[in-house]
């Protein structure tokens, strides 16, 4: 028998990896921390809610539309906002402000959609959960199996894309040295736009799966953003596999840490859960600011 807290931890960690890899991908290409990333997932979560409640679809089937919508949401941010700013020579602080402004726009749109949905279709859009739509697999809740599986598939797909395809190698070149890449005929702008689409799409997948497990509210993305950033920073912000590892670490630490502490010192610690990713992030920034992937593991292993 698997204790429920391990299930919670594994599902949450898997969802977090989908978000942190996307955040890191856009940070690598455009060099801007995207403060709107959490709300890409919320957009997916609300699309899933609408499709399941209004059209009676299974939430797993909404992964694809949610991916597309998340991707488009991210693409709009890049094409309509960040690209014009970059063309005008804006520095990255201005870009960050723009992502915060976009976050606000998404947040209001999500709320408008939620209000519309609840008034027109009488659907609960605040604090909703779609757990009853999940299936059972080997006596376990379906998401406990599928979420880690999807997370691993995503990171494998990213590995293949970045290392085995011509496009991916071009993208890596565009990340390393944009001007040199454009000299050899790589369309840097297109690769960046596609990286934003992928990033938003991954967040969309996480958003589609989120309501199956977590209580969702319009501000769920804004709450998650601290954990997402913590995961990406622990991973080093410049390596998507690092972001994957960071997502697992932060996800497990957050859920298991809160679980054990609530058993040890009392249930009053549960609301303070967001402090755990923040503490891990602060320690990382103080001692290994370049993250897990910035550590020279080989050197440490040789020394010991």
């Amino acid at each position, binding site marked *: 028998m698997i204790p429920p807290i391990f299930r919670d931890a594994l599902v949450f960690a898997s969802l977090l990896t989908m978000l942190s890899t996307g955040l890191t991908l856009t940070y690598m290409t455009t060099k801007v921390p995207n403060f709107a990333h959490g709300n890409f997932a919320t957009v997916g979560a609300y699309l899933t809610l609408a499709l399941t409640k209004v059209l009676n679809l299974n939430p797993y089937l909404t992964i694809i539309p949610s991916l597309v919508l998340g991707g488009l949401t991210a693409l709009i941010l890049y094409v309509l906002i960040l690209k014009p700013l970059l063309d005008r020579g804006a520095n990255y602080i201005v870009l960050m402000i723009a992502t915060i402004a976009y976050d606000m726009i998404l947040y209001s749109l999500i709320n*408008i959609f939620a209000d519309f949905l609840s008034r027109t279709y009488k659907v609960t859009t605040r604090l909703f959960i779609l757990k009853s739509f999940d299936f059972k697999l080997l006596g376990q809740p379906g998401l406990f199996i599928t979420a880690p599986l999807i997370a691993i598939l995503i990171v494998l797909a990213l590995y293949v894309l970045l290392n085995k395809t011509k496009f991916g190698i071009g993208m890596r070149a565009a990340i390393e040295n944009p001007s040199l890449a454009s000299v050899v005929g790589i369309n840097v702008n297109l690769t960046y736009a596609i990286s934003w689409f992928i990033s938003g799409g991954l967040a969309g997948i996480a958003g589609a799966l989120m309501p199956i497990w977590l209580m969702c509210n319009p501000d769920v993305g804004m709450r998650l953003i601290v954990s997402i950033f913590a995961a990406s920073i622990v991973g080093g912000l410049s390596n998507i596999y690092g972001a994957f590892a960071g997502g697992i670490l932060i996800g497990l630490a957050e859920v298991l840490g809160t679980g054990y502490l609530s058993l040890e010192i009392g249930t009053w610690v549960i609301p303070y859960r967001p402090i755990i990713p923040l503490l891990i992030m602060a320690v990382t920034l103080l001692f290994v600011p370049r993250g897990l992937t910035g550590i020279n593991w080989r050197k440490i292993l040789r020394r010991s």
Partner: protein
Amino acid sequence: MALPVELTFIIDLLAFIGIFAIIALSLNIEFGYAGIPNFGKLLAVAGGAFFVGAVPGRVLAFLYGLMDNLDYVGDNTKILFGVNKILSADAFSSIALLLISLICAASAGAVLGFIASYPAIRLKEDYLAITLLAMAEILRTIGYNYEDLVGGTKGIAIPDPFRWVGGELRYTVATITILIVLGLIMLYVEFLARSPLGRTLRAIRDDELSAEAYGKDIVKFRMKTLMIGSAIAAIGGALYAFLSGSVTAVGFDRVTHTFWPWVMVVIGGAANNFGVLLGAAVFVTLRKVITFYKDLFKPYLPFDVVWMEYLLLGIILIIVLIYRPEGILPEKPSRTLSMKRINEIMKRVKSEEKE
């Protein structure tokens, strides 16, 4: 004596312009002059308000001997009734309470700014921005859940330093106090902008490497800036608490106390204190007008009007960033000495050389 409705509206407007102008000016020091993206403005504002919610009431209750086995948060209404009764008869203590609380809140804000920025102060600004945002979220979480601080979601009443004025005039006096503090802060930030510190900050903002080459300790200056900025923002938060007579953790969120000040600074004009003042005034007035006419739109929209407002603000901010990034009043070049004065100095130097 009852004030006419129009006057009440204007006084209320001025009070909020004052508070938000203080917060926006503090952000202007950090972002406008020093180029630090403080996305955790909420931290210092809430810090100042939480300090005022938690400390002065307890100290006064202890000094007046009203604590006898009462729980400060649980029996808050009862204790504060006693404290306010004594305060309302004692103008001197009330003013002392206000001044001491503001100074202590500013110090608390500075300490919070220091702690929050410490993990990332040596790193690139984007790490700093993320860390500050996360720290602000943590303080908010603590404020919501740790009831001993400011009563959690229920909120807490605080000692009222304006009660001695009495009745209708209380709010007016509070507003005048806010405007006086704003005036002092405005003088200070203008002085700061023209001081060597202000010029150093701008040098660091424009070219970190050259500033460092001239021997400026960037980390130290950044830390100093964040502490000054957080102290001022904490004064804004504390004044807000004194104005409303209570502190509610739910009243402090990322939208109101981080995003709005950013809108004011960017639209008004970063690194121009008058621009930021104008930005705050325009922003608060617009919001007030929208809230005033909110009920008119209500029947026509299938959603809450407040989201429409957020949506418009986000779009306006992005349009300003793209088409007029310098804001309404752009930054002015630093003042130099007049040509006459420079010629005088050159003459003097030359005559000294001859000798």
